[in-house]
């Protein structure tokens, strides 16, 4: 009998989340899977079965069940939305199958669940929130000339799983840094109007706004902010909509410049010098393949890289080990192989290393070495500005005088 591993891949290709980044993650994952399908891994053929979760948790559950029980896949991979990961992970665990999440950043996916077969190389949402707070905390004195307790920060977020999780990280980070949180509020991503929120922001006069949202609401918020004359010192985005520069640019024109975003680093921005030397060619390959699918994109979205890199870690590290060391692709072999993973910093295209929290820890299954980076969009380029180790340029902070939102 021929040896092969069948992988069920679930992303949202339709519905609101598709445009929110899920489809880009799918493209990244597919590029890597196609790449490995050409050669196979350790004598195993790679067969990927794709499914569209249509931005609905119920369909994600149905499709996962179908893939696992009907298509008899050996594992599932992918998932963009935490609202899908939570129930699917529970099902997978119950069925004792293997799951490799490429995105799904909410910490709630793992918190105290004690999963054995579910792994996520990706940073969690509260890490995103903490990261930007940390960045501002380290720069408050130098750039704003304020003591932390005098720095006014506002935390706003769409009220979906993602926004809520990031905002929790924001809040924790703000507390740690000792900032003056002048506002914290959620809103629905489908709200037709955010002017009340903008008015409240005007009243709160924040120095820094920490915002998490998807695309339509980000453009709506920033457009209404401009129209209502909201001024601030810096805007920190947290992935999702902020990760798709094309759309920010389309919606805001020149105002998109100087916006910060935190995400896993875009693989095309990662510091290739400190990276495992076998990775840059892969990055190049992903880039070329992506350009074939989506020609003419100014800044390739980080989502593509996230999908690609996290899939690559599995295909190049976990899978070979499972086959060689644990004798196959059954869930237990995969699980043992995943737990053995020990990639140092610089060992992935996203710059971070991979080592999973083991059984018995509260976040079992989560990568303890992942971290996002803070980037800033300046003149249609995005550059890493934080952490220092990855930094490519000095952050422009606060917003320079004369820019639309500047409170200088």
């Amino acid at each position, binding site marked *: 009998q021929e040896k092969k591993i069948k992988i069920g891949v679930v992303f949202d290709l339709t519905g609101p989340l598709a445009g929110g980044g899920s489809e880009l993650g799918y493209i990244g994952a597919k590029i890597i899977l196609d790449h490995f399908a050409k050669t196979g891994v350790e004598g195993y053929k790679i067969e990927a079965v794709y499914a569209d979760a249509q931005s609905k948790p119920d369909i994600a559950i149905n499709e996962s*069940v179908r893939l696992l029980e009907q298509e008899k896949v050996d594992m599932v991979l992918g998932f963009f939305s935490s609202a899908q990961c939570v129930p699917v992970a529970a099902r997978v665990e119950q069925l004792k199958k293997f799951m490799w999440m490429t995105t799904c950043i909410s910490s709630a996916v793992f918190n105290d669940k004690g999963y054995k077969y579910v792994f996520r190389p990706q940073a969690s949402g509260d890490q995103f929130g903490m990261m930007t707070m940390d960045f501002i905390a380290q720069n408050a004195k130098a750039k704003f000339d304020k003591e932390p307790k005098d720095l006014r920060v506002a935390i706003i977020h769409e009220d979906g799983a993602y926004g809520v999780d990031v905002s929790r990280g924001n809040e924790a980070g703000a507390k740690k840094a000792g900032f003056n949180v002048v506002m914290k509020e*959620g809103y629905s991503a489908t709200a037709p109007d955010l002017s009340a929120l903008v008015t409240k922001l005007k009243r709160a006069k924040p120095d820094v706004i920490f915002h998490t949202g998807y695309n339509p609401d980000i453009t709506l918020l920033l457009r209404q902010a401009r129209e209502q004359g909201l001024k601030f010192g810096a805007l920190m985005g947290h992935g999702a909509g902020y990760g798709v520069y094309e759309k920010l640019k389309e919606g805001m024109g020149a105002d998109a410049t100087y916006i910060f975003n935190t995400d896993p680093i875009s693989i095309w921005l990662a510091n290739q010098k400190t990276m495992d030397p076998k990775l840059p060619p892969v990055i190049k390959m992903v880039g070329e393949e992506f350009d074939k699918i989506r020609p003419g994109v100014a800044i390739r979205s980080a989502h593509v890289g996230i999908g690609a890199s996290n899939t690559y870690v599995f295909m190049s590290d976990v899978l070979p080990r499972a086959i060689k060391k644990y004798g196959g692709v059954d869930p237990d072999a995969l699980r043992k192989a995943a737990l053995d993973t020990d990639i140092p910093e610089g060992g992935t295209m996203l710059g971070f290393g991979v080592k999973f929290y083991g059984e018995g820890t509260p976040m079992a299954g989560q990568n303890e070495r992942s971290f996002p980076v803070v980037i800033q969009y300046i003149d249609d380029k995005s550059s890493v500005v934080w952490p220092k180790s990855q930094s490519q340029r000095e952050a422009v902070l606060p917003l320079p005088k004369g820019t639309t939102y500047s409170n200088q």
Partner: protein
Amino acid sequence: MMGQGRLVAWAIGLAALIALPFVYRDPYHLHILVLILIWSFAYTSWSIMGRFGLVSLGHGGFMGIGAYVMALLWNHLGVSPWIGIPVGMAAAGVLALIVGYPCFRFRITGHYFVLVTLALSGIVLQVITATRDYTGGSLGYTPNRASGNKLLALQFDDKTTWYLIALGVWLAGIVVWHLIDRSMSRYALEAISEDEDAAAAAGVNVTAEKLKITLISALMTALAGSIYVQYQMFITPDTVSGIAVSLQMVFAAIVGGLFVSLGPTVGAVITILLAETLRIGFGTKAVGWDNLVYGVLLVLFIIFLPKGILGSVLDRLKPQRKVSRAHEQEAIQIARPGT
């Protein structure tokens, strides 16, 4: 008035349904079957009032309340679903009464009723989302896994068990449908749906009859919600609330046939199977096409089979009735002066 023959047919059908999971064990198909049964029950619950012109788009809300109340009680207070489910149903019932009473008292009918109930499900959705600290918001909510007695926690890993539970609940729904169909209340409600004043003049307590049926329907729908969450071990506000779910209920009921007991069930079978087949058929090769085709088919069904699939089939089988003067009556009714 069930004939001998029909009784036998029902008995055989039921026996076959009970035997099914012991013979046929494909887990995914069983999963779909369980979902079909649970949704059939929900749709039947909807149709119990929907068939009398009480078109509610708020049933997603009742389902959500049943599901969330039960799950919240279990997770936060450790209350067994055996108690949680009745409490959830009661909560949905209370809400149904709170909204229903003034609606019926002030004669809110037709489009207006549809939209008031739509607002109701909107509120439930927003409240679940906004109280995310307790309900998990749009991230959804998972009942904690039982550490002890599975039966007490109403949690089973085995699909066959779930299949039988769902079958039982569904059957109960059908029985309730028939009980109502054969009761005097049906006459009253048919009368009310045509002409409230005339019904009242026949001695019918219009408000009470409508409340009664709404209450039954809401209770059953809440039960469907809690069964659903126990089976899926997960619920999001989107699954149960909002216009999409409520529309889905109405769709299935009408596509199947609103005026026959198995209509909503047939509707559930057809809509769910259709959606599954189309999604799997088109797969990721033609993204979005499945919903497009699904929508077109729904529209076609409604245009060409206005009585629903089962309803139309049964009509074919029955001997032709006298030509209806319904179209004329409709106009005359509208033109009725304010007597």
